[in-house]
């Protein structure tokens, strides 16, 4: 959901509740909301630097200079990737240093609660500590939710613009938050070819198997018509070039990049360049282009490259 542009007087929480009731198409001019990113040139910040914490501090500066997380934001939900029992250096999960700075700066900005729900692929009791993320979340006395164990928050929603994934059970933490930030890690993925921001939402739903059985790429694109985070920060500090999503990778590159954008589709399209010469290589990006879910044309993006030392 684009906070800066949508002054319709409908909060994110209300919007999602309405769309959960299936009435979104009537209440909101969908074309304006979702099409906005396509009309203007999309701002995208690409930060380069060796120090993860400095990178993330710069990213948070950019976020707060450009509208922040919204007005009177108290509850923030952060979608990381902590699905695998792998160390931060292996690049299968979001780097905990980025999460650290995000929580620190978000709390400083006046948010009261930050919740980090994740539906991991390995038992959360193994993957969360190995990822290093739960330690960081606990350091700031915030909450990390293991959706694999604690399934009661999964809430039925309908996705009015979806082709395949018309219904899903989504973790209520994301539906009820005032602002949602998507902070995935970019890496190779054997099924979807690449996983970045759009695919990261598979860790917010109850039944991932449905996606696989019913056109994975279409479902990934479908969910992005529904879940529009306030900001997307893609961790490309180190990228698994093969053997994803779990690794360990045979080729681990260190682009040392953070990609910051409001439009997660644009962020994915830009980041895909690290792996493939064209977005055509990734089917869900082709679908996103054809269905205009977000900006996929890099030429139409206002790319701001920033060196962080």
């Amino acid at each position, binding site marked *: 959901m684009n906070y800066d542009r949508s002054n319709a007087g409908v909060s994110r929480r209300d919007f999602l509740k309405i769309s959960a009731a299936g009435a979104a198409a009537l209440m909101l001019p969908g074309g304006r909301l979702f099409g906005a990113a396509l009309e203007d040139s999309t701002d995208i910040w690409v930060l380069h630097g060796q120090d993860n914490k400095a990178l993330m501090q710069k990213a948070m500066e950019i976020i707060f200079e450009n509208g922040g997380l919204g007005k009177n934001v108290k509850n923030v939900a952060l979608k990381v990737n902590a699905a695998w029992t792998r160390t931060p250096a292996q690049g299968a999960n979001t780097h905990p240093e980025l999460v650290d700075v995000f929580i620190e700066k978000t709390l400083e900005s006046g948010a009261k609660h930050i919740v980090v729900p994740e539906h991991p*692929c390995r038992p959360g009791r193994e993957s969360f500590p190995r990822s290093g993320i739960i330690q960081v979340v606990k350091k700031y006395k915030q909450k990390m939710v293991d959706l694999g164990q604690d399934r009661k928050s999964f809430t039925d929603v309908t996705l009015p613009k979806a082709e395949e994934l018309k219904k899903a059970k989504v973790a209520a933490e994301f539906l009820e938050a005032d602002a949602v930030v998507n902070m995935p890690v970019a890496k190779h993925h054997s099924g979807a*070819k690449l996983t970045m921001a759009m695919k990261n939402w598979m860790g917010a739903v109850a039944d*991932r198997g449905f996606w696989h*059985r*019913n*056109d*994975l*790429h279409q479902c990934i694109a479908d969910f992005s018509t529904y879940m529009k985070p306030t900001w997307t920060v893609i961790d490309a500090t180190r990228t698994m070039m093969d053997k994803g999503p*779990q*690794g360990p990778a045979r080729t681990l590159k260190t682009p040392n990049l953070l990609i910051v954008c409001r439009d997660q589709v644009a962020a994915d399209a830009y980041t895909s360049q690290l792996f493939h010469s064209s977005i055509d290589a990734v089917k869900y990006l082709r679908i996103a282009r054809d269905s205009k879910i977000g900006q996929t044309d890099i030429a139409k993006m206002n790319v701001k490259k920033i060196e962080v030392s």
Partner: protein
Amino acid sequence: MKLRRMVRWLVRLCFLALAVFLIMGGPLPQTVDVSLPWLRRVVPAVSPLVAFSETLSQRQWYLGIFWLVPPLAVLVMAVWRGTWFCRWLCPAGTSYGIASAITRWKKPTILLRRRIAPVLFFAIIFASIFGLPQFLSLDPLSSFGRLAGGVSYTAAWIPGLILPVFLIASLFQPMVWCSQFCPLGYGLGLVQSLVRHPRKTISRERRGILFGLAVGIPVSLVLPKIFRRKTIPILPPGAGDITKFSAACTRCYACVAACPAKIITVRATGGLSELFIPEIDLKAGTQVCTESCNACTLVCPTGAIKQLKLKQKQHIQIARAKVIRENCIAWANGATCMVCDEYCPYSAIDIVYKPEDEFQDIPLPMVNPGRCRGCGYCRAACVSPNPDKAIKILPVEKQKKVRDDAG
């Protein structure tokens, strides 16, 4: 005298309670944030008969210094005080003692006059020399431990019945197990008298020795060859192969009890020497032999399951996965899936594409047999709507070490 008897009962009951605690592997208080799987090993590992016979049959020292101490201590005590262990510490003996106490008020019924313990003892020793310690499952400490692990599996009831049956028998003939059957108790008594009067003891026990020879050697040579099945089971990591494993296993089921995923079950079929061995059952496809667990290798008191560090366990191939293409939504329906590969902790699933797939949108899974450990993650993760799923886990003849750089 009365005080001495009371003290002895107090000590025995305390050790019985301790033994129950140990074979249950706790329960440890919730505040203790570690699980100690080796607790389950303690009771069956105390038996010097198990330690001695296993070392004989495996022809190697399988015990570390730490695990050598308890059986050695019992043995040393036996030299000095004979069956002292039976009368003070043995949890099975204490259980029988409680049942036998009831017969104090009525006239005992003698069920068995002859003592067959010498035959059992020597049969175990001679069978062990020939590589198959078959009757070792009669060891009272293994019988006692069996109560924790075996009860959930029907096949385990038969070996598991030893303790309950003799508890009932003790109601008629007091201490019938300990006096007439127990090979461990007999062995401990024998050690003492051997040290004191070697010549006299051997001539007194020659009947038992001869019978033991007559039973033990044929059993160790013939039994493994009878009723062997073509199908082989999946064995716990470190078990090697079925012949070695079924020979060394005393059926204490410590591994069955210790497995947190509850995938180690008790095998109902197989040849005579393979009866009731523990096996890994991945058919349900819900649980896996996870790479972060080596519990079963830490609890085995006999070395039937070799003690493995986590790193070593992660490189043992216990089985192999096979994709059933007709059931696979990628191979059969052209879906984009590869969940099997996502969940594989060992990168053992390779991706292939059909030549007509221009953008390579539909990756197809192929198991790399050089890397597959047979842990079952792929089967558990498989989202195929077919109830059989699209991945089978097949047993391997012999467990082998997988190199990290393989394939």
